[in-house]
């Protein structure tokens, strides 16, 4: 059996075009120097390196790219964009891919998305975040025990973690709630995953 990627069949130029359009970046200018990978602080937890993601986009290999774990591990630090010799905003491409993946329901690293949702839930409820709330929600969602349990004593002692939710005083929380609600409604209307 041949496991090679059949490029002639799997290549999807419209995917490349879509990424270029959404990110505003011309992916074809990438010549695979690897500088993005070289500077990436998250490189060692990626399943595909940034330059390989870029290559996948160039080739139009949508599944390989959108199913990659790397999209979810990107820290958005923009080091790749900063040092790209072809001035590609690689971080924007990564973010675009993440949005595309999410909207199609491809969430390869659910814990990351769960963390985001926990965070946004806090924001929705209180208008602002507070660490304990986010963590609690995250633990509930990810079914993981307190990941940073070793830090808790120090953090608590130093009052590093807010126990009280910070609530916006004058109806801001409600306003934020409405923003999130409208966003979710619109996403549903447009058929994407909120």
């Amino acid at each position, binding site marked *: 059996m041949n496991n090679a990627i059949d490029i002639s069949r799997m290549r999807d130029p419209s995917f490349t075009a879509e990424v270029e359009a959404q990110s505003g970046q011309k992916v074809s200018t990438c010549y695979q120097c690897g500088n993005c990978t070289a500077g990436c602080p998250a490189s060692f937890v990626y399943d595909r390196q940034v330059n390989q993601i870029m290559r996948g986009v160039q080739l139009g290999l949508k599944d390989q790219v959108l199913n990659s774990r790397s999209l979810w591990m990107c820290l958005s630090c923009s080091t790749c964009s*900063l040092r790209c010799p072809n001035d590609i905003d690689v971080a924007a491409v990564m973010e675009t891919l993440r949005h595309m993946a999410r909207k199609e329901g491809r969430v390869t690293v659910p814990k990351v998305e769960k963390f985001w949702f926990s965070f946004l839930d806090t924001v929705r409820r209180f208008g602002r975040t507070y660490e304990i709330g986010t963590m609690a929600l995250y633990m509930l969602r990810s079914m993981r025990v307190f990941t940073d349990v*070793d830090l808790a004593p120090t953090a608590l002692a130093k009052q*590093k973690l807010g126990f009280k939710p910070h609530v916006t005083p004058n109806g801001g929380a409600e306003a934020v709630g409405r923003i999130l609600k409208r966003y979710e409604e*619109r996403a549903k209307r447009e058929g994407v995953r909120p």
Partner: protein
Amino acid sequence: MNFAYYPGCSAAGSSADYEMSTRAVCRALKIGLQEIPDWNCCGSTPAHAVDTELSAALCVRNLDLAARMDAATVVTPCPSCLSNLKHAGKRMENPDFRARVNELLDNPAAETLPEVTSVMQGIASCRSAADIAANVCKPLKGLKIAAYYGCLMSRPAGLMQFGDPENPTLMESLLAACGAEMVDFPLKTECCGASFGIPERPMTAINSGRILEVASNMGVDAIAVACPLCQMNLDLRQKQASKAVNVFFNMPVLYYTQLMGLAFGFDPRELGLHKLCVSADPLLQKLDGLRREEALAEAKAKAAEGGNA
């Protein structure tokens, strides 16, 4: 000089010390910080990781409130908030994007949104090195300090306008004005991985470890930071980082405002130094020692002069 002020969520929690010291320093420098009433979370990484328009909507609500205060400039201490607010402001220049964002908001955003900048740049924009030095009563002279900016403050360069994105020097100039000896810290803009501190701990620890390692190799007394996430990462998670790179650290990680505050003569508690996980006490003792010696030497010199006279 007055700025509209966006403290950011961590100001009330993990970076209460940043908040305390920022307010103290600005008070000393007679810079007014008018908190945007009823501000909300900028959405941080999760919001923009989920959707750009959502992220912008959360930010624009704050900018719109600031616009209603007739503020020309909003300052914020947190680079993450800064980045989000700036991105949102920039993107709102695109009419299509603006329309989409307005759909999410209660009322359409003001046509002209205020500029956003960091507190650090806000200070530098209206106070010269001499102004700062004039407030110093306890110079940091003799303290070797590495300035660490993290990844967000200077990037993307075009948007953030924070000097050379590889080698910003603003924090150095502020702290140098307070007398500190600033080392040329090569990893000043490397990412510490903090935004994944919760879901992806090992990655964060390794990145932080590298930063702490080079800093301690350079023999600095402390790392100065400007980002609540970086601070939490390098300070609270210092032990995790130690484990990850197998080197023991005992490196105080202070907000630059705390250092400035010390130089301005504020009480360490007023600056929230007690909230640091890696204690700054040895640092404070060293500083007191240095100043004492200096005073002694000066007194001696004076005495000698007087004797001659």
